């Protein structure tokens, strides 16, 4: 088995390759090698969610996975969800509802919420689902499902309003 094989994967649809020091986290690769500064480094220990990106459809903490482990994966960052000219529904809703103050947690919040809405559509239950087989998207459900994304400014009520708005717009 070869040591330190390269990883070939895609970031926002663009093919890329990493081969180098295996210690590089996906987060550092995205920011420092790809220049995608939307994804933020908060705690760097999987506790704050600021680094959340979407890998093969799943939201993950990019600080707790290595660049070399992404071989064959499709990574989507905040830059892949929308652009200033063409905001995603959630991005637009965060602006409309003032879903941030400093904005540092916002890319992670939006990547996380984008995948969370899909998880709900798939019928995934959560800790607060009264019925494991029929989760209802109540405010408590959305709060629980977003508990992996901290906001030190405490913009939670507006984040919740933005997510709810985007979910209703999608219906």
């Amino acid at each position, binding site marked *: 088995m070869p040591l330190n094989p390269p990883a070939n994967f895609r970031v926002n649809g663009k093919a890329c390759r990493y081969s180098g020091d295996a210690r590089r986290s996906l987060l550092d690769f995205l920011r420092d090698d790809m220049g995608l500064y939307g994804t933020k480094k908060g705690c760097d220990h999987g506790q704050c969610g600021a680094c959340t990106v979407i890998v093969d459809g799943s*939201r993950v903490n990019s600080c*707790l996975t290595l660049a*070399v482990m992404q*071989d064959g994966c499709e990574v989507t960052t905040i830059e892949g969800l929308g652009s200033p000219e063409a905001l995603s529904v959630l991005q637009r809703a965060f602006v409309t509802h003032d879903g941030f103050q400093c904005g540092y947690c916002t890319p992670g919040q939006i990547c996380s919420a984008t995948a969370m809405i899909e998880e709900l559509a798939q019928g995934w*239950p959560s800790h607060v*689902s009264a019925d494991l087989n029929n989760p209802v998207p109540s405010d408590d459900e959305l709060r629980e499902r977003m508990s*992996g994304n901290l906001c030190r400014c405490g913009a939670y009520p507006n984040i919740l309003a933005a997510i709810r708005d985007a979910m209703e717009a999608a219906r």
Partner: protein
Amino acid sequence: MKFFDYARATELSEAIGEFAKPIAGGTNLLDLMKLEVETPSRLMDINHIGLNEISPHGDGLRIGALVRNADCAADLRVRRDYPLLARAILAGASPQLRNRATTGGNLCQRTRCTYFMRLGTRCNKREPGSGCDAIGGVNRDHAIFGATEHCIATYPGDMAVALAALDASVQIEGIDGSRQVSLRDFHRLPDGDPHLDNVLTGGEIITSVKLPAPVGGKQIYRKIRDRASYAFALVSVAAIVTLDQGRITRADLAFGGVAHKPWHDPAVGRALIGNEPSDQLFSEAADLLVNQAKGQGGNDFKIPLLRRSLIAVLREATGIGGNDVRNL
């Protein structure tokens, strides 16, 4: 983080018998590597070797070691037949972590004892023979069962507590072949060698977890923690209780956050079986459970908390009484 080499296995045979540290989800391992609590010289990425399916096994289910926690909790068979397992998984970590964390990796996660995670303190688990600064230190999160003068750390997970109540087993593959270990015997008590969390030996890998045939009943996972989401258990109770003609016919119980392993005390279940549910019965069972408990100072509160949590769960499972257990 210390330097390491990285290898990527594409089949199980490449991953067993290796001195390399296996990495699956990496959510705990990479965290500990950043802290330099874990310093492997080589990582073996096992994410590409399969073992990522849930399949029928006899009358039960086999959960591949690389099934992600989120996928396991969302699986329709798990939700229907083993709601306790789905509930326990969903009570742990955050959605992002559950999307990466795996069945096998979750079992191998290490304690969150703050001394273990901080270099510069004495910890027999991190550095055998160095001592234990948690004893006499800040030990609010620590064990009330099975601790020794060498280690008072707890196993932090939720999933394994449900698996202990469900009497699941762990399938292990090594160079000498495969073996199966009851989940209840997979994790160890610290004894004199707390650096060993479980019975895995070097080069062995968990390949699956087997669930026995579904038993129905009322299944409850109650987790008490400092905040309502995304926190480790202070104590947790996993319970499967069945009633027949007004009497308890099954009481499979396990407890989290209280020992170096998911705590399973068969005497507590035995004390309940054959009896009509009542607060007196539940109090006696809970007394039996905490009889051997020993606090370390900072965690003394866990003893009445565990006692009351068990009573509350038994009340809910049998449909008697309310949630107020302060006077019991």
